[in-house]
């Protein structure tokens, strides 16, 4: 089977768009969290979010009409264009049949459900326009990327909620290594949604002021939005065209807690099995892992269980493996989160630096691992794990490596 590498990175995030802004921001500890502006939060007990501000779709989209394209698709298509540019590829000269898309999401295009209900409330159900519902289903996100770039290869949405980005990158990896395409644009996208915000708020999961993963006083996650798309190519083709190689995808592992729709398995059973499967498929040992990009949402439960899972799997070495959560800066961008984290992992592998967990002030006496508190660090990682966990008990860990011949 073919080896698969990451050769392009495109991101639209709460700390800015494009690889450089994103990476510089992460290493500097920039936070994208602030007061929610998408909708009125006065009826909510919490008011912060990680929104993308100042995004102008017309600056990015050439074929899609922003007026009839949902926000998640706009982010996704913009990120895809940026990823191709970053990979040094001319989007008009792609091998169209051999280029595909795989994306993840939590909510698809929820704005159309909100609109549906707004119209139903204001004018009654008969006033709902006919073209609204077809714009909602989540498959429109990869389809929109395919339309924007006129690419015709495998096209799939994997809506496995907050772990979806990893599933989608894993699928792109599978497609390329089996030779079903020569290039995949893989990642995740989600738009800020009052539905998601309301749900997490009602669960009491949203932090009131800041996101502080793994801190003793952590109070919750912060919903966010954005998109990340990676260009995946077979190693031989990437080398032949002289591409910059950020990282190699070695493998991934998925599992299901089969325990509870929203709460993680208390012993981290599924998380441990996903990491173990990813290492096995990648043919590396736990001793080879030099960095973990944590799911690290900032909720008391997630962070405790993830620390427990890592401690269980890595045993005495657990404290020697730096593990940070960039959700401390980006918030939880839902289906895009693990794709952004995979982008960060790829950049960590190519630059040698790992991003910090910001707002980390008080160590948690229960699990005190190396969370890379507050300051980026140069560790020259060779093998990294990217963890993602989701509602439905869906867990996915992706294993990436520094590119070496």
């Amino acid at each position, binding site marked *: 089977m073919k080896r698969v590498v990451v050769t392009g990175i495109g991101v639209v995030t709460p700390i800015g768009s494009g690889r450089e802004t994103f990476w510089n921001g992460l290493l500097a500890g920039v936070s994208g969290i602030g007061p929610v502006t998408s909708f009125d939060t006065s009826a909510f007990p919490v008011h912060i979010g990680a929104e993308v501000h100042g995004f102008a779709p017309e600056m990015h989209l050439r074929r899609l009409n922003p007026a009839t394209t949902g926000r998640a698709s706009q982010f996704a298509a913009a990120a895809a264009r940026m990823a191709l540019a970053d990979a040094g590829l001319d989007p008009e000269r792609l091998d169209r049949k051999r280029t595909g898309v795989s994306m993840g*999401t939590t909510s698809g295009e929820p704005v159309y459900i909100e609109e549906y209900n707004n119209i139903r409330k204001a004018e009654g159900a008969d006033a*709902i326009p006919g*073209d609204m519902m077809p714009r909602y289903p989540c498959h429109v996100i990869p389809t929109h990327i395919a339309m924007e770039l006129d690419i*015709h290869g495998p096209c799939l949405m994997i809506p496995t909620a907050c772990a979806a980005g990893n599933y989608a990158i894993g699928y792109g990896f599978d497609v390329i290594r089996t030779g079903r395409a020569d290039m995949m644009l893989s990642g995740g996208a989600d738009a800020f949604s009052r539905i998601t915000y309301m749900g997490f708020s009602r669960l009491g999961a949203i932090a009131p002021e800041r996101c502080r993963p793994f801190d003793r006083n952590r109070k919750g996650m912060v919903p966010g939005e954005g998109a990340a798309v990676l260009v995946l190519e077979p190693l031989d083709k990437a080398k032949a065209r002289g591409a910059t190689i950020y990282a190699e995808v070695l493998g991934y592992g998925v599992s299901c807690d*089969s325990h509870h729709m929203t709460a993680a398995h208390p012993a981290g059973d599924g998380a441990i099995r996903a990491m173990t499967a990813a290492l096995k*498929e990648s043919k590396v040992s736990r001793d080879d892992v030099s960095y973990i990009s944590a799911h690290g949402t900032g909720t008391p439960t997630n962070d405790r269980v993830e620390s427990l899972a890592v401690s269980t799997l890595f045993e005495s070495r657990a404290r020697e493996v730096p593990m940070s959560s960039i959700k401390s800066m980006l918030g939880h961008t839902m289906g895009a989160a693990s794709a952004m984290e995979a982008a960060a992992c790829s950049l960590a592998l190519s630059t040698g630096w790992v991003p910090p967990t910001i707002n980390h002030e008080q160590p948690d006496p229960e699990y005190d691992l190396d969370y890379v508190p507050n300051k980026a660090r140069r560790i020259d990682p060779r093998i990294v794990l990217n963890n993602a966990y989701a509602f*439905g008990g869906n867990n996915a860990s992706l294993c990436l490596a520094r590119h070496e011949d």
Partner: protein
Amino acid sequence: MNDRVAVTAAGVISAIGAGSETFGCNLESGRSASAPSERFPGVTVAEITDFNPQPWLGAKGIRVLDRSARLLAVAAKMALDESGLSQENAETGDPNLGLVCGTVFGSLHSITSFDWSGIEEGPAWVNPMEFPNTVINAPAGQAAIKHKLRGVNSTVCAGLASGLFAIHYAAEFLRFGRARALLAGGVEELCEESVRGFAKTGVISRSGVARPFGVERDGVVPGEGSALWMLETEEAAADRGRTPWLEVLGFGCAQDAHSINGFDLRGEGATEALRQALANTGISPEQIACIVSSASGSRAGDEMEARALERVFGPQLPDVPICAPKAAFGEVMGASGAFCALVAGLSLQRQAIPPTAGYASDSVRLQLSPAGIPISGEYALVNAFGCDGNNASLVIRLWEN
């Protein structure tokens, strides 16, 4: 890499019956479930009336499952029981047993209702128990909890091709050794929001009869239900002493990149999907014994498929028996591919392809029939072509040792 992927069992709940035996017999009878809706006045649909999951799932713990999750859990229960892989009496489930589910609208009604209660009652008063059902992977997650499925759990969405993508996705995971047994297929429920969306876009048949490939066809009849196969690696099936039923062979897919809601009449994606499925199986069109079509009575969709089939099969196309079963159980969207794959499996088993309900004698370009047609040959071809630009085809055959 494990090369051969086996189908060892099936589960199905549909508007034409539950269980593959009943489903198959009702297909053979040529009847259609299309009828004026009981739940959605003024629309013709193929709905599961008086759906009661209790005979399969019992009463305990199903209150929190929405309709999609219940339909999926019912189909999963049948396939698990038939395959002998039920985890009911296991303390913890098998970590090598999982589920891959295709869907389009998934939890649409749960999401819309949750948002609506926020509007009506305020965000502080919504029921937090309803939030978990708002994620698109909720049916797969709920079914995993219900049946103790601890292995690979994934939800895939490729529009009307979702069900076939799910089968291929699961087959690849088995080949990679990421699981030993995976339920794979799809689920779709009819709900107020999806039916209204269908009705408003004008794709629903006004006459209330889907006539696949017919000159007078005037639209689709939306359907609902869930169909799943139990897929296993050859080794896993052999270790359990199970003789598999079918083998999953070549898959093909292509995206038209034309529209999110309109067929591309050129049919290039469909043609490409067909060619890949045959090439990946290593066979030529003459070796196809029957085709289970994606045609639903859609004016544009059926024309697109006919053109793609003509391009790939050439002048011999009228000789290949075809069934367009969506006229019987409706356009089940994200589950359609899985439903059609099941029809193909049953056709190979019975050595006859079922009749096409709503058959119109003017559909002369293809060998559809108001009665069953005997088939001879090894391979069956299944199509799932969508108005969202996603096209998929799959080849299967009866298992041979």
